């Protein structure tokens, strides 16, 4: 039973890319300051840092205390939340639940990842830690390999073509052209995707989200903090984390993103809304096939039609249900632990009419979906304009 409503009062985000001159802490502080700017209170009640591999990437753990201290907030409770690529969304969910419950008046959620300090094969090793060390990493399978297996299975079982699979990356790139914080801001064609370098057959380079550095932060506040606020607010109407059988291959139906399906259903139920009410979605397309299966799991496309519907225009900017309004994981970027908070920050910008050239006019409601592993964790949140 919720004691309070929850709102996002402000966000901060860094550009995403190869940020050679900025450290993990530099990025976290930058995003955090962006979110705290204009806040009537100097400190949040608690800080949550979502991050996946600071240990391997920066020889650093204990990010909660470290970031609090750097922000001049020593004394503020702070923790790191890790759930692979859904660290950001999961951190937000923990904070959201505490604010709803009345345990916290405010919470600062920071998602941060520093990937570029590692060599590509080290990044690969770091990302592979989302999967079983003893049975998946052990056989040499990278995270891309698992998604390659999934992609082949998807295409063979449901007759999805190469051209159809390319549709979501194309939408992402088109949307990122006008997105200031996006990593890649150039439109592409399906041919570009289909001809790009093979990574894990059938997945090619342009089917895969890039490696990049970045941090995003969101300041959550409760009713008291929100009332009388001069700041633009977006309401968090619902949010849920769900998990799936850990390894893709141990699932009864490998094409059922059960975690996303259940998290979305529960989040909507909390919000008291039907799926049709969403005006746009921020979908976790770490790989083109994951984007497609996420849309199917959320019920927006029938089984096998996720990419097909994207190709037909359903999910494009001007379509029935725009997705990835600032470029999604493929073009906006995917600094893994930060992504979930980027999605949330983008939803906030849309719902407070601050999305500039990327604005979805009149958007009332949105869902963000952030996945860890191959849908082993899914953190889904529903947002709406503040009354």
């Amino acid at each position, binding site marked *: 039973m919720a004691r309070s409503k929850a709102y996002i009062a402000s966000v901060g985000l860094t550009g995403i890319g190869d940020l050679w001159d900025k450290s993990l802490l530099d990025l976290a502080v930058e995003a955090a300051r962006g979110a705290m700017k204009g806040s009537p209170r100097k400190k949040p009640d608690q800080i949550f840092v979502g991050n996946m591999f600071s240990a391997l990437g920066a020889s650093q753990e204990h990010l909660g205390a470290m970031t609090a201290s750097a922000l001049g907030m020593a004394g503020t409770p702070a923790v790191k939340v890790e759930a692979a690529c859904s660290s950001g969304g999961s951190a937000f969910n923990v904070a959201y639940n505490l604010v709803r419950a009345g345990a916290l008046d405010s919470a600062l959620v920071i998602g941060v990842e520093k990937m570029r300090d590692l060599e590509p094969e080290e990044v690969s090793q770091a990302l592979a830690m989302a999967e079983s060390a003893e049975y998946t990493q052990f056989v040499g*399978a990278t995270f891309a390999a698992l998604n390659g*297996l999934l*992609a*082949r299975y998807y295409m063979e079982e449901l007759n999805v073509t190469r051209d159809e699979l390319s549709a979501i990356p194309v939408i992402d790139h088109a949307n990122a052209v006008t997105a200031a914080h996006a990593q890649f801001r150039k439109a592409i064609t399906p041919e570009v995707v289909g001809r790009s370098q093979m990574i894990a057959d059938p997945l090619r380079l342009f089917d895969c989200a890039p490696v990049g550095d970045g941090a995003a932060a969101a300041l959550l506040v409760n009713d008291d903090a929100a009332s009388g606020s001069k700041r633009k607010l977006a309401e968090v109407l619902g949010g849920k984390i769900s998990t799936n059988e850990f390894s893709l*291959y141990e699932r009864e139906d490998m094409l059922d993103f059960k975690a996303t399906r259940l998290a979305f259903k529960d989040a909507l139920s909390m919000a008291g809304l039907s799926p049709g009410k969403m005006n746009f979605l921020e979908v976790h397309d770490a790989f083109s096939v994951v984007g497609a299966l996420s849309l199917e799991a959320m019920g927006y496309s029938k089984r096998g039609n996720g990419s097909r519907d994207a190709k037909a225009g359903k999910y494009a900017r001007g379509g029935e249900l725009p997705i990835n309004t600032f470029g999604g994981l493929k073009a906006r970027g995917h600094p893994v632990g930060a992504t979930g908070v980027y999605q949330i920050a983008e939803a906030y910008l849309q719902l407070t009419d601050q999305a500039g050239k990327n604005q979805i006019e009149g958007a009332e409601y949105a869902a963000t979906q952030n996945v860890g592993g191959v849908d082993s964790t899914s953190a889904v949140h529903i947002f709406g304009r503040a009354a």
Partner: protein
Amino acid sequence: MSIQYWRIRDRYYRLIGSRCAACGAEFFPPVYKCKKCGSEDIKDKEMPKTGKIMTYTQLHEPLPGFEAQAPLYLAVIKLDNGARILSQIVDSPDESVKTGARVSATIRRVRVDGESGQIVYGYKFTVNPLLK
């Protein structure tokens, strides 16, 4: 990290997975609780060494330590007892690696810790099993 692998060497060498004593379902890797009926009465069981490819991929950039094997075939294999296993496919001509192909297990060097570290042996599969 060799102790982490030493601990489960029988699983690696002999494909010892789990059998649910309640419903008979079998799993590899091993489970703590039956994925089918939820029973916690789980016993070790050696898996059959043959099965077929459910799906596969050819990985051009394998994990560190496996670079020499690129491009590397990986497959989700459905063993003859219904258990599913993720493994490399080796010694198999390209045209033979396809969904539905029958495969059989072999034991190979899976990980080698450089020139002076330990060798971890484990399962891999071939589409080209020894002929009778």
